Structures are given as structure tokens and as C-alpha cells.
């Protein structure tokens, strides 16, 4: 591309926070109507670059060097007063988490009118209202007046992200910087939002700088990609060539860890498992029959589960798949005896789960442990790693002190955590290390069943691949039974034997993973499967 025609040109950008340099000599350019994706894992500097372009780094702490030009005009040296007219009107911003990106105490309409008032030439209130209504309609919100009268907490995540995109395009910007615009959304909604961004780019000729950790999203949506690691560019170029023939080892590794691109990643481990435990799979470890649960408030009733049944053979993995509100977490809580069902039975190892019998529950949990979604909140920050892993053994008074220490050491080794981390506290660990600690804690009692509640959804893809490999290896070696809760069908295809698809508390479809993926019977399942981005090879865009 001819640099002079570039909408946004970044040249040798350096950003440091104090002595720490987080962006080191990054250069790229985005043209009119083009989409460029900055790809990287957490800490790669991709969000810092976006904030440097938008000047949202906070004045004092960050130091920015290098050149950023917008339509040929250098903006790094501009004073705040000179930069202000560029905000919104030339450079639009679509944030990551729509749930927290609108002011919760003000109506959508109030915030939209405020944004409209910043557009030059909108003197009258009627003009502003018309602008707001047309922007809301433009992003596919059918009842703009109702949306405008709503407060943020009354709308869904997808609706809020549409509102935010509407507010961003309202002043007619030339470039949209979208910082992980879909990572907080359900997969099917994710597709719709990405489609919307594509559409705006095509029809309004807006350039898009897409920040994402999701290689598959970048592969499907961007013309060009820039792969970042530790603040430096590892690889850059047209999407097709980067994905079909990655030159740098980092890009190759990153690509190998994307579940959607590598469905057979754990096939070898699972084949070995089947050889070692040939008898497993014959009898049922978990048998859930017809469970139903309705939550009632004074205002309304929510049916969380309606006549849901599934079984898990011993030593196998069953996946509960669904979007938020599908009831998958309620089912997991029921299995742990944390939730009383209105109807139905749950058997674990031939024993019925009875939430009203504390003693039976205590016995149950010796055999059934859980790994939670978020390793940043599920570990006590005051405990050392060793104590966290030992705690269940202390609670169940397993053996003497030495035996407990030995068992904890075994569990830490099983999840491949180095011995030296034993005396650290969670604050000193990375997300992946923390999740390994959580798995080790669940393993300590040597349970038969692990409930894995979205165990990798808070982690980067390479870290996710490592955790999944640990789990697959443990199943091979110990014959563990997994209930795997996930919204990510790409991971489910790699990792699970059977699955149940839930939607609004009802079973949509169930069966073996091979069958369901090969011939999904239900429309909803097809939608979920096709929302695994870039699953048929790469480079969907031209």
C-alpha cells in the first residue's frame, strides 16, 4: 500500500510505563475501508498500541515515542486541545466489555444524545434525536426508541455492544479501533457483531484496527495481520499468507494452539487412554435423569433446567455446551449438591446426590471435585500454593501431616508445576499456573470425577492448550471422569467424547462428538458449530 494514502500510519512506536518498555518499535498502516488485526496474547502490548493511537494511556504514566499519523497528519505531538476534535469524529473506539462501557446510572438515550451533541452542526435537539435513531437503526437495533429509553442493565451484552458501535459511528469516524470487541460475548452473538463491523467497513469505508487474542477471529475478519509478542512484531502481512505459510516459530506455535484450527490435537492422548483403560466407558460414572429447576422471584420465573438428562461413562469426558443462561452452570451445581432440583435424580458412582444430607455430600465431594472458571478469584490470595493444595486433605483429615505433604507434592507434579512454586502465593503466579494449582487442589483427594467449569475460558490460547493437555494426560493416567462445561465448541471437539447442547435450560441435542459435529440435527447446534471461527482452513476474507 502507498503509505501516503494510509488512514492510520504507525511508525516505530515505543511505549514504556516507567522503566518497562511494553511496545518496542512497532510499525503498521491501516487503509480506508481495510481491516488490520493486531494479534497477541495478554501482555503482548496490543491494547497499549490501541490506547496510544487513541491517546487513552493516561497522561503521566506512559511515555510514547515514534510516529502516529492519521490521514497524513502527525498526531503524537498534538496538544490535548488539538487532539480533542479527532476523538470520536475521526478515531472511533469500540471497547472490549460492553457491560461496563456505558454509564450504568444514565439512560442509553441520555448518553447517545450527549454523543450526538459533539457532532458539529447538530444544533437542535430534534437533529440530535434523528441522528441517534438512525445510528441505532444502522447497527441493527429494531426498536431504537425503546433502546434509548432503557438503562444499560436492561439490555443484553450483544445489544449493548451494538449501542456502543452505534455511538462510535454516530459522528462518522474514518477509523474504528475495536479492542477485543467480542471477547465478552456469547459465540453466536460474537459472529453477529463481527458481521456488523465488516458491513460498516464495506458500506461506510471505515478502516478497522482490530485488537484480538483470537487468531481465528483475525483469520476470518482481517485483510492484514500483525502478530505481536512481548511488544515486538513477530510477523506481519496479508492474512492469507500469514496463516497459510507462517514464517515465525511464534506464529506457528500460536496457530497450533487454536482449537478451531486443530481438532485432532489430543487424539493421540485419547487413543492411549482407550488402550490403557479398555474396560472404562462400559459402566456409568454419572447418571443424571430428568432434572428440572425453576428460579422464582416476585417479578418472574426463570426456567434454568427443564427435564435435562445425560450420562458420563467412567473415564470419559462429557461436555455440557451452551451460551450464558443455557443452564449449564446450574446443572454442574446440581451435580455438586449445591442446588436443590425441583425434579429428577443425579447419581454419582451409583450413589444419589442428596443436597439435604450434609454428611452424604461430604462423602460425595471426596469423589467429586470442581475446577472453577476464573483462577484469579478461586484461590485464596493469603495461602501459599502448598497450603492451597493441601487444604482438602486437611479438611478430610487424610493420613498424617507427612502423608498430606507427599500427596500435595504428587498433585503439583501431576499438573507439572515446578516444586519451587510451592511456597509462592497466587499473586506471584500467572493465570495458567494458577489454574494448574486449582486442578492440583481438585486432584489432591484423588477423586473419580472432576467438574471442569469453563476451566480455560479466562486464559490465552497457548496457556489453554497446556491446561487441556495436562487434563487429557491425567485422564489417560488416572482414568478420571470429566464433566466439561464450555461455550467453546472448538475446545469441545478437541477434548470431549460426548456432549449435550443446552439452550434456555432444555436439551437441544446430545450424542457423541463425532456424530454431532458431522451431522448436527438441530439448527441451533449448526449455528454454534459454524461460529467456531475459521474452522475450514483459513483466510475466509479476500
Amino acid at each position: 500500500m502507498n503509505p501516503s494514502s494510509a488512514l492510520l500510519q504507525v511508525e516505530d512506536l515505543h511505549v514504556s510505563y516507567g522503566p518497562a518498555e511494553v511496545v518496542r518499535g512497532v510499525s503498521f498502516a491501516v487503509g480506508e475501508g481495510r481491516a488490520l488485526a493486531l494479534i497477541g496474547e495478554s501482555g503482548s502490548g496490543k491494547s497499549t498500541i490501541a490506547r496510544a493511537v487513541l491517546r487513552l494511556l493516561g497522561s503521566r504514566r506512559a511515555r510514547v515515542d515514534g510516529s502516529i499519523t492519521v490521514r497524513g497528519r502527525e498526531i503524537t505531538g498534538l496538544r490535548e486541545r488539538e487532539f480533542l476534535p479527532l476523538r470520536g469524529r475521526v478515531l472511533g473506539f469500540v471497547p472490549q466489555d460492553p457491560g461496563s462501557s456505558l454509564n450504568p446510572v444514565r439512560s442509553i438515550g441520555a448518553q447517545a444524545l450527549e454523543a450526538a451533541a459533539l457532532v458539529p452542526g447538530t444544533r437542535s435537539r430534534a437533529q440530535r434525536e434523528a441522528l441517534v435513531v438512525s445510528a441505532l437503526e444502522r447497527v441493527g437495533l429494531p426498536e431504537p426508541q425503546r433502546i434509548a429509553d432503557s438503562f444499560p442493565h436492561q439490555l443484553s451484552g450483544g445489544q449493548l455492544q451494538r449501542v456502543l458501535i452505534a455511538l462510535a459511528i454516530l459522528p462518522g469516524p474514518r477509523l474504528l479501533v475495536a479492542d477485543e470487541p467480542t471477547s465478552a460475548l456469547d459465540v453466536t452473538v460474537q459472529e453477529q457483531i463481527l458481521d456488523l463491523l465488516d458491513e460498516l467497513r464495506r458500506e461506510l469505508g471505515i478502516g478497522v484496527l482490530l485488537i484480538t487474542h483470537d487468531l481465528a477471529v483475525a483469520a476470518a475478519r482481517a485483510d492484514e495481520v500483525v502478530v505481536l509478542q512481548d511488544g515486538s512484531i513477530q510477523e506481519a502481512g496479508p492474512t492469507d499468507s500469514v496463516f497459510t505459510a507462517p514464517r515465525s516459530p511464534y506464529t506457528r506455535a500460536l496457530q497450533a494452539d487454536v482449537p478451531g484450527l486443530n481438532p485432532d490435537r489430543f487424539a493421540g492422548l485419547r487413543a492411549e487412554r482407550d488402550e490403557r483403560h479398555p474396560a472404562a466407558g462400559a459402566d456409568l460414572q454419572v447418571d443424571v435423569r430428568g432434572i428440572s429447576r425453576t428460579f422464582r422471584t416476585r417479578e418472574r420465573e426463570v426456567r434454568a433446567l427443564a427435564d435435562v438428562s445425560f450420562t458420563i461413562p467412567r473415564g470419559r469426558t462429557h461436555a455440557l455446551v451452551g451460551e450464558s443462561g443455557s443452564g449449564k452452570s446450574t446443572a454442574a451445581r446440581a451435580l455438586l449438591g449445591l442446588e436443590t432440583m425441583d425434579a429428577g435424580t443425579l447419581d454419582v458412582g451409583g450413589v444419589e446426590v442428596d443436597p439435604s444430607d450434609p454428611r452424604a455430600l461430604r462423602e460425595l465431594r471426596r469423589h467429586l471435585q470442581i475446577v472453577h472458571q476464573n483462577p484469579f478469584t478461586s484461590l485464596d490470595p493469603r495461602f501459599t500454593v502448598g497450603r492451597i493444595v493441601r487444604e482438602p486433605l486437611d479438611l478430610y483429615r487424610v493420613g498424617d501431616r507427612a502423608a498430606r505433604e507427599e500427596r500435595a507434592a504428587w498433585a503439583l507434579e501431576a499438573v507439572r508445576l515446578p516444586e519451587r512454586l510451592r511456597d509462592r502465593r497466587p499473586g506471584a503466579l500467572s493465570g495458567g499456573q494458577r489454574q494448574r494449582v486449582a486442578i492440583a487442589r481438585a486432584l489432591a483427594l484423588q477423586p473419580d470425577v472432576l467438574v471442569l467449569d469453563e476451566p480455560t475460558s479466562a486464559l490465552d490460547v497457548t496457556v489453554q492448550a497446556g491446561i487441556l493437555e495436562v487434563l487429557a494426560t491425567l485422564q489417560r493416567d488416572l482414568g478420571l471422569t470429566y464433566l466439561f462445561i464450555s461455550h467453546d465448541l472448538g475446545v469441545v471437539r478437541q477434548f470431549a467424547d460426548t456432549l449435550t447442547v443446552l439452550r434456555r435450560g432444555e436439551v437441544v441435542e446430545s450424542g457423541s462428538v463425532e456424530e454431532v459435529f458431522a451431522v448436527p440435527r438441530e439448527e441451533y447446534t449448526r449455528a454454534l458449530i459454524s461460529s467456531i471461527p475459521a474452522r475450514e482452513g483459513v483466510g475466509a476474507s479476500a
Partner: protein
Amino acid sequence: MSAAATETTAGSSPAGTSAAARTARRYGSFALRRTGQALVVIALAYVLVFLVLAAIPGDPISAQLDNPQNGYSEEEKAQIRAFHGLDRPVLVQLLVSLGNALRGELGTSMSTSQPVAAMIGEAIPSTLALAVTALALAILLAAVLGLLSRLLPEGPLNSLVRSLPAAFLSTPNFLIGLVLIQVLAVNLGLFSLVEPESARSTLVAALTLAIPVSAQIAQVFITALDESSGQDYAEVALSRGLPPVQVVLRHLLRPSLLPTVTVVGLVLGEVLGGSLITETIFGRAGVGTVVQKAVSSQDVPVLLAAVVLSATVFVMVNLVIDLLYPLLDPRLRVGKESR
């Protein structure tokens, strides 16, 4: 604080009148319920204070009657006791006293024989003027400090503003009062010590009381503003091209008011308690003086009335604050509408 300033471009809300009416009805029943609860709390406070005062041995009348120098006959003693209702069981006294209080009769002082209502009624205007002025000043001061902490660029001046609340808080009330008297009255002659009820004197006394109280409000307000400034919506509003000052006024102010209003309710006790000390320093004849005399003479009816009065004020202000929450934050409006 000017909550109104945040909503200059209030959203369009002509449509959906039925939903609005439903919300209003829900708010009405919520307000009614809270008011009922508040009245119960006041009644319980009355009972509790009455029982505690009854349990304390001694009262001025018994002291007088039992003094042999006064030489009352047994008959006279019984008559006087009966006049004050002291001859009946405590529970009956409580019911009678509660019934009288409901009719607005607070009884007669045991030491001065004046009606309690009149004694307190005379003292209230002075105390009310002091307390209301003090609270208003405290809120004003806290608002100014909070806004400055956000609007001033990072630097020594901003740090100074942020450290003021801690300094205010650690300075004792009487010291501030004495310094203000020395500087403003004695050295500068801005107000007169012999006219303690004049507007200027009231203002200075209120300032004495307001400074430590404002510090507590300001600390919460500044923290709340800092927290909302770190929220995503503040960054997004900035990215849309809203000038930073507007971001503070339109986006940060109202979410920060919730914890701030809560603390205003809590520091009210301090304002009421602090007014006793302040009245003494500035020689004002207010409720504080009445209470002080009643305590030293164990004048039960006066104490009862004074304590219940401050409990009522406290409960009422907190009731108002409770009723404000749903207006400040739509998420607290009872009952969610469907998506």
C-alpha cells in the same frame, strides 16, 4: 452536591408511559414500606431510651423528697410522686408516656417544672441553625475538594487537595473552634463573641463543626470519583470526544454520589454530637445546653425528649437517603423490567 448538573441532557422518555407508571407505583409502595419501618425504629428508640432511663437509679424529685431538710410529709411526697406518675409500675409509666408523646405532650421537667416541649422548642432554632449550616458547609467543602481532586492536573496542588481531608480529620474540633475565635473574633473582629446567635457567629461555629465532618464526606467522595474514573465507561466517553471536565460532571459525578450520600447519613450523628461541644465553645444556648443541664440533674423527661428527638432526626435523614438511592441509580429501582 448538584445532582441536577449531571442530567442536563436527560434522556427522552415520552414513550412507555405504562412502564413508567408501573415503576412509579413500585417506588410508591417502596417509599411507604420504608417510612413505616422508620416509624417503627423511632418507636423502638423511645421505648429503649425510656427503659434505660428508668433503670438508672435516682432522679431529682426523689433526691429532693428524701432530703430531710425539706421536711415533706409522707402524704405530700406521695402527692408529688403521683403528679409525676412515679408511683405506678414502669410499664404503665411507659405506656402513659408513649401515649402522651403521641399527642405531643412531652411532660414536665423534674428540675425546672417547665414543660419539656417548651424548653426544647426554645433551644431548637439555635441548634437547627448550627447543624443545618454545618452540614451544608460540610457538603459544600467536600464537593469542592472532590471535584478539585479530579479536575486539577496531577501535581503538587492536586496532592495538597487530596491530603486536606486527612489533615481536617486529625484536627480536634475544639482546636479549630478556638483558633477561629482567636483569629476571626479577637484579632480580626469579624464577629462578636457577645452575640453568639448572630448570623456571622453561627457561620463561624458551623464552620468549626463542618471541617472534620466534611473531611469524612470528602474522603468517600474522592475515592468514589477515583473509582468511577477507572471504569470503562469513563474511558469510552473520553474516546467519543467528550472534554475531560464534562466526563467528570456527566459520567463520574452521579455514580459517585451513592456512597457519598450514604456517608452523609452516617456523619449526621457526628454533626448532632459535635453541636453540643461547639455550642459550649461558642456560648450558644441550644439543645446541647439543655441536654447538658438535664444530664447533670438527671432530669429524665428532658433527657428522654432530647434523645428521642435526635434519634428521630437521624432516622428521618437516613430515610430520605434510602429514598434517594433508587433515584440516583436505576439499577436499584425495585423490580427489573424484562429485557
